[in-house]
Each structure stands twice: as C-alpha cells, then as structure tokens.
C-alpha cells in the first residue's frame, strides 16, 4: 500500500514527461524560419556601376573610380558590409541584372522614373542632378539659358532623355548632332563638330574635369537647372527591407557630410554648386 502511494506521483511525472516531449517536438515543427534574401541581411554585396562615365563610374586599370563608386562604397560601409564586388553595367542591362540577381544594387547615374519603377525598386535618390549645359569657354557669354541653344548644334545621345528635354520639353529648336555616348560628345565639342552638350550636371562636371586633365581647350559649365534628375540606387523589386537599409545608409552618410566632400573631390574644378543635404527619398513601398 505504502509503496503504491509513493509510486503514483512518479508515474504521473513520467507520463507528463512523455507528453511534454511530444509537445516540444510539435512546437519545433511550427517554428520554421523563412530564409531571408534581402540586401539588408547580406554580408557580401555585388554592386553594378558604370565603367565609361568620367567622374561618376570609370573603369581604369586599378578598378572602378568616380562619385557613384564612392557612394556605393559608403552605402556598403554604412550597411556594415566589408566584402564588396563591383560589376560593370550598362543602361541596356541594368534592369535585367537586378532582376536576375547578378547584382544586388545598381549605383550608376540611374534616374528614378515612374516607368522604371514598374521594373525595379529604387532606394534613394542619393543625389539630385539638374540638366545643365557645357560649352566652349568662347561661347559662354552667349549661352546663359536653355533657350540660347536655339539654332546651335547640340549633342544627342540615343536613348538619353537629355536632348528630348531641350527640344521637346522646353521646345527649343536645337540642331541634333548624334554621338555614341557622352565621352563622344566631349570629343566632338572639343573638335568643334558641335557647340554644346546638355545633360545632368554631374556628367558634365565629369567631362569638364576629364577635359582639364587631358589638357583640352577651355570649357564652361553653364548652370541652367531646368530639370531634376534623381539618381537612385536600383534594387530588386519587393526588397523593401533592403531599400530601407540603403536609405538609412544614405541618411547617415549625409548626416556626416560625406557626399559633399566626395562631390568636391570629383567635380570641384567645374565650379558647380552642390547640394549638401539629403535628397527627398522615393519611399520603399
């Protein structure tokens, strides 16, 4: 009788232990974490940049250099990523490489537009450029606004929105001279095959600095600011966490005054004025 009484609690205990083990196994099945593929949680980033844009993204023997490249490095730094690989992208491939996951981010003079937003998502912008005009110094006195381009030979790069902005948006009857890219525009401007190059001021400032380094004839950058071009950070559509993390990195970067220094270093020689404060973000949703 006594032994029986003593045995009862242990038997209940054993039965309970059995149940707890079963319940624990059950709960373990319930908590299966979904794997995250967001840029926000990556330890290594592949960033797409331009390879042929002086001052912004230029591939030289030693690697990539320019404002976009430096911004990309800073974004990675503020996202606490030390392992960064750069890849060359072009305006024709950037949506595809983002979608396919070949690159995690694109930082390459990539203007945010409503149409592009249907294909990829954008963090940032990290800088807002304005369309300006680059002319030979001798013509500077006669070109003060976009309207002064009427009747002048202006560089036109196929697929770029810059020339249509002058001709169609502003309605200025400029004469188009086709070029393969903005480097080609510079060559043609210097050799007097055309009179003006009009596009984003940072691209112009890069050309200006390149020309100075190459020892070309004196040029003048005319600040006209007749458009806002927000340069965004391309990111795979749907990666809202990644987009927010990039925005946070850009905010921190500006709070520490880093972009102003980078801009001064890359484009200071052109006499362009820079915005030192964080641009208005597009929003990640």
């Amino acid at each position, binding site marked *: 009788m006594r032994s029986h009484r003593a045995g009862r609690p242990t*038997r*209940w205990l*054993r*039965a*309970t*232990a*059995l*149940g*707890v083990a*079963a*319940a624990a196994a*059950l*709960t373990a*099945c*319930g908590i299966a974490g979904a794997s995250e593929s967001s840029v926000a949680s990556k330890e290594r980033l592949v960033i797409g940049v331009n390879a042929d844009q002086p001052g912004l993204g230029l591939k030289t023997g030693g690697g990539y250099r320019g404002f976009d490249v430096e911004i990309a490095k800073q974004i990675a730094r503020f996202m606490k990523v030390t392992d960064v690989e750069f890849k060359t992208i072009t305006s024709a491939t950037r949506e595809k490489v983002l979608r396919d996951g070949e690159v995690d981010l694109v930082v390459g003079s990539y203007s945010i537009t*409503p*149409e592009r*937003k*249907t294909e990829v998502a954008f963090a940032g912008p990290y800088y807002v450029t*304005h369309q300006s005009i680059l002319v030979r110094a001798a013509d500077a006195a006669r070109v003060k*606004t*976009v*309207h002064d381009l009427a009747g002048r030979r202006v560089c036109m790069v196929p697929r770029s929105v810059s020339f*249509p902005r002058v001709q*169609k*948006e*502003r*309605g200025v009857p400029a004469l188009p001279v086709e070029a393969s890219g903005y480097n080609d525009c510079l060559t043609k401007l210097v050799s007097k095959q055309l009179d003006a190059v009009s596009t984003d001021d940072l691209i112009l400032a890069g050309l200006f600095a390149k020309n100075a380094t190459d020892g070309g004839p004196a040029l003048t950058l005319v600040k*006209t*600011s*007749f*458009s*806002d071009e927000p340069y965004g950070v391309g990111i795979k559509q749907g990666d*809202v966490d990644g987009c*927010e993390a990039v*925005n*946070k990195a850009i*905010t*921190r970067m500006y*709070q520490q005054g880093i972009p102003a220094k980078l801009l001064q270093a890359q484009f200071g020689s052109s006499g362009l004025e820079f*915005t030192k*404060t*964080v*641009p*208005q*973000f597009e*929003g*990640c*949703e």
Partner: protein
Amino acid sequence: MTAVQQQGGAPPAPVPAPQGGPPAPPGGVRPGLADVRARAAAMPPRKGVRRAIPRTNSGRIRAFVAGVVVVLVALLLLAWNGVDDARTGVRVIDTAGPQVIATGDLYFRLTDMDAQLAHALLVGTQPAHQADRAQALARYDASRSKADEALIQAARLARDGTERQTARSLLDSLGRYEQLAGKALLQDQNSPHAAGPPSDQVTKMYRSATDMMKLELLPQAYNLTLDNGTIVRHTYEDKRSAVLTGRTVVVVTGLVLLVLLAGFQWSMAKRFRRLLNLPLALTTVAVVVVVAWTAAMLGSQASALSKAKTDGFDSILALARARAIGNSAQADQTRFLLDPERKDTYEQVFLSKSQTVLYLPADNLTGYQDAVRGLKGLKTQRDDKPILGFLGTEGRRPSSDAKALDDVLAGFKKFQQNDRQMRDLVSSGDRGQAITLQTGQAATDYAAYDQSLVKLAAVHQATFDGAMKDGKGGTKGWQYGLPLAGLAVVLLLVVGVRPRLAEYR
C-alpha cells in the same frame, strides 16, 4: 478467466504488453495488480524509448490523460500567443497609424508655408490686394503652427539616433526658414509693388528661403515620415504573419490532440469493452469547438489587420502625399509668376510633380495636359498599361470609392486646365491677367480639388476605423474564454477517466 490470470504464473514471455481486461469489481482486494507487478518485475528490463511506454492499464490511462493535458495546455498557450500577436498588431497599428498620418501632415504644412509666402509676395502690398495678402499671411501662420505640432509628433516617433538627428535638423532648418521668410516679407513691405514680381532684393531673399525649403526642409520631412511609416509596415508584416502561423500551429496542435483523444477512446473501448466513453466524446467535441473557434478568430484578425493596412492606412498615407505634392506644384505656379528668371525650372518641376500625382507619359507639359484632359477615368485601367502615380494606384484599389475618385479626377483636370490658361496668358504677355487667374479662380478650383482628396481619404479612414474596431472586438474576452475552455476540457476528461482509474484502486 482473464488473460492476466492465465499469464500470471507463466514464465517471462516475450509478450509486448499486458492484455488487460477489467479486473474484478472494485473493493479492497485487487488481485490483478499484484500479478501485473510481479510479472513486470520478472520481465527483462526494456531498453530505449520502449522503457517510457507504460505497461499497465492504469499507467496507460495516466499517460493518455497526461498527454492530453500537456497537448491541451500547449494548444491553449499557442492560441493565447496568437491572440496576443493579434492584439499587439491591432494596438500598434491603431496608435501608430494615425500618428504616422499626422506626421505626413508635416510635409503638407511646410509646402503650404512656402506657397503662402510666395502668394503674399506675388500679390504685393497695394490696397487692392491687402485682404488677399493678409489671408495668405494668416494661412502661413496657421500652417507654421501645424507644422510645429506635426514635427513634434514625428520627433516622438523617431526610433533611433539617425531619425532623431533628422528631426533635430528639421527643427533647426525650420527656424532659419522662418527667419528668411520674415526678412523677405519685411523687405517687401518696405518696397511696395503692384501684383507681380517683387523687387530684386526680395526675390533674392525669397529664393534663399524657397531653396532651403526645397533642398533641406521638405526632403528631411518627407524622409522622416517615410521612416515613421515603416513602424506600421513592420508591425503589420510581423504580426499578420505571426497570427497566420499561430492559426496553423493551433490547427495542427488541435489535430494532434484529436488524434490523441481518438486513440484514448479506442484504447478504452478495446480494453474496457465500452463502445463509447461519453465524457471523453464530449471532450473531443469541446476540443474541436475550441480549435475551430480559435482558428476562425485568428483568421479574421489577420484579415482585419490586412484591411486596416492596405485598404486604410496605405491609401490615407498615399493620398496625404498626393495632397502635399499637389500643393507644392500649385506653389510652383505661383513661383513661376513670381520669379520669371527661373521659369523654366519651375515649369519643369510643376510637370514632374503633376506626374508624381498622376503619371501619364508625355514629352512636355502641353502634351501631359492633353493626356490628362483625354483621360476617361481612374477606375478603368488596362492591366498591361496601368496608370502610375498616386492617383493611378488609388484607382486600382478595389476598395476605392468610385464617386469620390471621379470628383478627384475632375478637380485635377480643372487644375491642369487652369495651369494651361495661366501659362498661355504669360506667353501672350498678359502677366496681370495670369496673376488674377492664379490668385483668384484657379486658387478656388484648387481648393475644391484639395477637398475632394480629403473626402476620398475619409472613405479610407472609415475603412481603417472599421477594421480596427473589428480587430479590437474580435479578441475581446479571450483572456477568460481560453482558460475556461481549457478547464471545461480537463473536467470532462476527469469525469471520463475517473471511474476507469478507480477500478484499479
């Protein structure tokens, strides 16, 4: 007679488990028990998991009961966890949602300050426009005070050092902006002019003020409200998925419990030769009810969260932004008249802001305005060619009110039509007429458009409030209901097994 008695004296046989039938009627003597014990002692020690399997009938019953109770407790805890997730989700969205929307107001108020300043400087100081100027200045003051309020709210929602620094920087810039604005107004007062561009000095001062607004204040205000908005998004995503996972886990646990109960029932039926243990059957029914009820409640909580977020909050926020950006575009019209030297820039940003609100592809402003005029409606969009921009997105929301949406589109069309007329007047050299239009009829029309946006947002606000009410009501009383349901199940279980266990005493 019984298997136990037959096997009682038999040598340890490789019988996996005792075949227990009901022993002799309960009394002081329990012959079966001693036999079973003796046999158990005589059996070779079992190894591994098998050791945990009880070998006696009473042990088996206890194991089943304990198992049922443990799984039941687990079920109740998991259900409670789901209820808690749902409640947290509803609570956070219910408080943070309106706060975030209030901070979204910051951007609107700031653009309105700059718009009113431009308006006051444009109409000038002559007696004919005294009332207009005074009204603009009164609105400037009202917006400033609302902006301060919204900024404090936004600063309170800041979650980390970066966001707090943005809020501080905003406060600082706002102070400097007000200083510049005050100087420009004073200088303008001292150099009277007719309606139209003020003196060069005033124009310069206004430029510093408006540049500061555009480059420092507005971006930071916008970014801060975007940051604030992430609180709602994160809570929504985390809690909604937690509630749905909770529902699945509750259902699975419930099924396990039902299997256990069925096994118990079967084993009792087999060993005690009773087809149905009624209290045990009732226990099973009670569990089914609890699980089904909990699952249904968690499902409706998830859909309340989803409704509040996507049909309510997202729309309200998007419309608040559309309102702010539209207001700023309207100010660009005033600036276009105020500062002719920058007219190209102001015209381009007017187009770009209009496209942010309602995107239609176009080469220039004229082309855009033609496209807007030709637009039939926002609700009927082609799937392959959706209309972009805030209003386009709003049009695609199934929850959007068709009538309110039509009013908004009509107002927007009027806004663009007035703009065309105003710019045509300027091109034909009639700046005075253009200013009269801009500060008169066009301003009235714009106010009507703005009100139509407010009305559309009110529809979504009602959806949000309704979903939050459902969310709060859905989990009411569950903190009592769940333990009571658990208690009822346990009681039924005890009623069901007690007589059986008593047979072994």
